[in-house]
C-alpha cells in the first residue's frame, strides 16, 4: 500500500463523528488489508461459524507460517523490482536433500546424533546457494530475474525429483527422525514452534528491511538503481543479498512443510508459487520495485490463508473454491486501487 501518510490528516470542515473518522482513517491506512481480513471473516461468519472457533483460528495461524516465511523472502526480491519464481523448487529441493541426510532408513547420517542439525544446515545452505546463484546470474550475467528464476525453478524442481530416485524407489524419502517431525506440532511455552520460527523470521526481516542499511539500499535499488549507485550503494551485492534472503526463507519454510508432512517429498510446495507472489502483492508490495513492507506481507498472507480456510470449511467443490478465491482476490485488488485514488485526491 502506498499510504502516503498512515495517519493522513482528515480534512477540516464537516467533521464526521470520531468513530467513523477513525474507521475511514483505518481503511486508508496501511492496515487496510488487515481490515479486509476482519471484514471477510465477519461476513463469512454466518456461513462458516467454525471460522471463529479457537481451533480453526489456530489452524489458520499454523497454516500461515511456512507460506509467510517464503512470502517474506519474496518481498525482498520484489522490492528490488525482481521476482523469484524458484522458491518452490528450492522448497522441494531442500526437502529431499534434508531428508536424504537425516532419514533413518538410508540417510547419509542415519541415526547419528548430528543427523537433524546437519540436515537443517544442509537445507539452509542449499537455499542460500541457489538464492546466491540466482542473484549472481542477475547481476553478473545481466539476466532478467524472471527468466533466471524460471530456469533455476525448472532445473531444481527437476533435480529434486531426480535426486529422490537415487534414495528411494517410492515417490518420497521417508523415515524422518521423530525429533524432526515433532517440530511441527511441538510447542514452547504454549506457542507452536513453527510459529516461533515464523515470528523470528518476521521480526528479523522487518528489522532488515525497515531499519538496516541493507534495507535502505534495497529500497533505493528498487526505486532507482542509478541513483543508488551514485549514492554509494553496492547495487550488485544488494541484489544478490535479496535473492539469498529469498532462498534461505524458502529453505526455512521447507523445514516446516517437511516436518508437517513427515516425509521428504520432491513435490513439496510445488503448487504455491502463485499464492506466494499473490499474497505479497495483495499486501501492497509493488511488482515494479521500491515499495514493500514485511508487515504488509503478513497481512497479505493472513488474507489468503483465511480465504483458503473458509473455502475448505464451506466444503464446497473445488470449482467453487477457485471462483470465490479469484473473485475475492480481484475484489480486494479493486478496492485497494479505488482506495488509492481516494488517498491521492484527499
Amino acid at each position, binding site marked *: 500500500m502506498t499510504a*502516503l*501518510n498512515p495517519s493522513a490528516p482528515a480534512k477540516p470542515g464537516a467533521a464526521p463523528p470520531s468513530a467513523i473518522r477513525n474507521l475511514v482513517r483505518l481503511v486508508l491506512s496501511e492496515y487496510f488489508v488487515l481490515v479486509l481480513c476482519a471484514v471477510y471473516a465477519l461476513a463469512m461468519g454466518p456461513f462458516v461459524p467454525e471460522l471463529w472457533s479457537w481451533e480453526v483460528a489456530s489452524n489458520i495461524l499454523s497454516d500461515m507460517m511456512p507460506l509467510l516465511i517464503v512470502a517474506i523472502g519474496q518481498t525482498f526480491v520484489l522490492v528490488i523490482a525482481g521476482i523469484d519464481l524458484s522458491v518452490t523448487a528450492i522448497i522441494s529441493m531442500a526437502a529431499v536433500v534434508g531428508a536424504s541426510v537425516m532419514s533413518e532408513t538410508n540417510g547419509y547420517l542415519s541415526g547419528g546424533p548430528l543427523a537433524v542439525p546437519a540436515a537443517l544446515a544442509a537445507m539452509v545452505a542449499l537455499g542460500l546457494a541457489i538464492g546466491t546463484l540466482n542473484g549472481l546470474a542477475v547481476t553478473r550475467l545481466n539476466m532478467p530475474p524472471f527468466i533466471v528464476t524460471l530456469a533455476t525453478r525448472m532445473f531444481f524442481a527437476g533435480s529434486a525429483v531426480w535426486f529422490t530416485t537415487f534414495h528411494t524407489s517410492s515417490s518420497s524419502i521417508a523415515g524422518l527422525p521423530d525429533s524432526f517431525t515433532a517440530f511441527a506440532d511441538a510447542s514452547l511455552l504454549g506457542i507452536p514452534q513453527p510459529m516461533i520460527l515464523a515470528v523470528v523470521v518476521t521480526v528479523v526481516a522487518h*528489522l532488515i528491511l*525497515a*531499519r*538496516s*542499511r541493507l*534495507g*535502505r539500499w534495497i*529500497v*533505493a535499488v528498487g*526505486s*532507482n538503481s*542509478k*541513483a*543508488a*549507485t*551514485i*549514492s*554509494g*550503494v*553496492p547495487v550488485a551485492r544488494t541484489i544478490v543479498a535479496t535473492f539469498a534472503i529469498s532462498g534461505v526463507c524458502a529453505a526455512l519454510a521447507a523445514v516446516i512443510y517437511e516436518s508437517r508432512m513427515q516425509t521428504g517429498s520432491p513435490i513439496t510446495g510445488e503448487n504455491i508459487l502463485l499464492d506466494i507472489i499473490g499474497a505479497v502483492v495483495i499486501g501492497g508490495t509493488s511488482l515494479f520495485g*521500491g*515499495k514493500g513492507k514485511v508487515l504488509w506481507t503478513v497481512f497479505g498472507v493472513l488474507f489468503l490463508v483465511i480465504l483458503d480456510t473458509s473455502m475448505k470449511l464451506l466444503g464446497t467443490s473445488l470449482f467453487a473454491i477457485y471462483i470465490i478465491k479469484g473473485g475475492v482476490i480481484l475484489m480486494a485488488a479493486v478496492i485497494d486501487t479505488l482506495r488509492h485514488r481516494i488517498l*491521492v*485526491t*484527499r
Partner: protein
Amino acid sequence: MSPPAPLLLVEGIRKSFFGVEVLHGVSFTLGRGEALGLVGENGSGKSTSMNILGGVHQPDAGTMLVEGQPYRPADPGAAIAAGIAFIHQELNLFGNLTIEDNLFIDNFPRRGGLPFINRSAIRKSTQDHLAQVDLDLAPTTPVARLSQGERQLVEIAKALSRNARLIIFDEPTTSLTRREVARLFGLVAKLKARGIGIIYISHALDDVMAVCERVTVLRDGAVVGTGTSRDLGVPRLISLMVGRSIETIFPQRTAPPRPSDVLAVTNLGQPGVAEAITFTIRAGEVVGLAGLMGSGRSELARMIFGLDPFRSGTIAVEGVELRDPTPARAMAAGIAFLTEDRRGEGLLMEAPIADNAVLASLRSVANALGLIDGKRVAAASRTMAQKVRLSTDRVEDTLVKHLSGGNQQKVVIGKWLMRAPRLFILDEPTRGIDVGAKQEVYRIINALVEAGSAVLLISSEIEELMGLSDRILTISRGELTGGFDRLDFDREAIMTAAAVGADHAKVSS
C-alpha cells in the same frame, strides 16, 4: 470589420491539483508569428498552463480561443488536431522507435483504404521535415541513438509535420550545446516568419529576451506582469519573478584558496574518452570545467567518482591515491558528486525527502545497534532542509516528485552536504532551476568552499563558471586545452579554448 482575432487568447485559467489551486486565473494572448516568453520561478505554473493548452490537463475555469474559435481540448490528440504542438520539458519521444515512427506515431498515413502504414510516404515526408530542421539523419534511425539536441529537433520536425499553428517550447535549451541552441533560435525565427506562434518557456532569461517579442511573468500561479522584451529587461523580469530584486547573482567570496591540494589528477586516460588529463584543485578553491557538451567533461567527473573506468593515470585525494575507485571508495575519500541528470540518476522520485537525504550517510543516522533511527533521519533531514533553505520542512511525508525542480536540486545537494565532502563535483548544478534557486545554490557552494572544501564545477553557462570559479580549465575531445586564472578570465578566449578541435570530433561506433 473588427480586427482579426489573435492566434491565441487565454483568459482566467484556473487549475487545482488535489484540492490545492496552482493556477489562479492565468491570462495572456499571442499573435501570429509572434514569440511570447513565459517565465517564472520553479513551480509557478508555467508547465501546468501549457499542459492545459496542450490538452494534457483540463482547466477548472477559464476560456481559451484559438483564432477566435472556442478551444477546449479533451486530450492531447485534440490539441494536436487543432494545430497546437507542445514540446515538453521532458521530451516525449519513444527511444525504441525510429525517427519516422515517432513523427507519425499518432497519425500514420495508410496505404489506400487498407490499415497498413504507407512506409514510402512517411519516409519521404520525414526526410522533408528533417531537412527543414537541418537534421541530417536517416528516417530509420532509432531515437535512442540520438543526442538530446537531435531529439529536440525531431520534436520540432514532428510539430512541423502536423502543420502546427502554435508551438510551445517548455525549457528547450536545458540540455543543448551552444551550437544546437543557436540552431534552434534560427529555426524559431524561421517558424515565426511563417506565421507560426511560439510560446517559449525558459529559465535562461537572456535567451528569452533574444527570442521573444513579449514576455509574460508568472508568480505563484498568477500573471504578475506582461510587457515587451525591450521595455522589461532582465533585472525587472527577475524582480517580477521572485518578488524582490536580486542585485548580485554571484555572491562574493572572501577567503582565498589555501595552498594544499585536495584533488590531484595525473595523466588520466581512457581510450576514446580521455587523454593525459592532469590538474589539481586546492582546498577552498573552485575550479570550473568549461567544455562543449560531449567534450568529456561529465565523463571526467564520472571517472574521478568511480562511475566510469579509466585505463591509465592516478587520482589522489589529499595526497592519498584513490585506487580502483568505486562510488563508495570515492565517498570514503571525501568526494561527493552531483549528477547532471537529476531525475534519472540523482533522486528516488517516489520516496520522501528524508529517505533521499540520508541515502549517502546511512551510518550517521544509525543507533548503537546499527539500526536506522527514524528520529535521527528526520532530524538530520530537517537540518539539511534548513541549510539549503528547502521550501518545506515536512521532510518525512513530502515525496520528492512533488517538489519543484529547484527544490529537488537542493535535496540532492543537501544529501551530499550531509557528508561534509572535501571535494564536491558539481555537474550542471543549476540546470532547469530558476534564478532565485540558482542564487541559493551559489550561496551554498560558496559556504562550502569558504569552509575549506574544494569544488569542481561543470557548467554550460560561461557566466556561471566565470562568476564562481577561481580557475577555469577547458576541455575538448577528452583533453585539457587551456587554463585561466580568475584575473585573466576572458569569455571569448575560454570559449575558443573549449572549442579547440571540436569540429573534428567524430562519433564512432
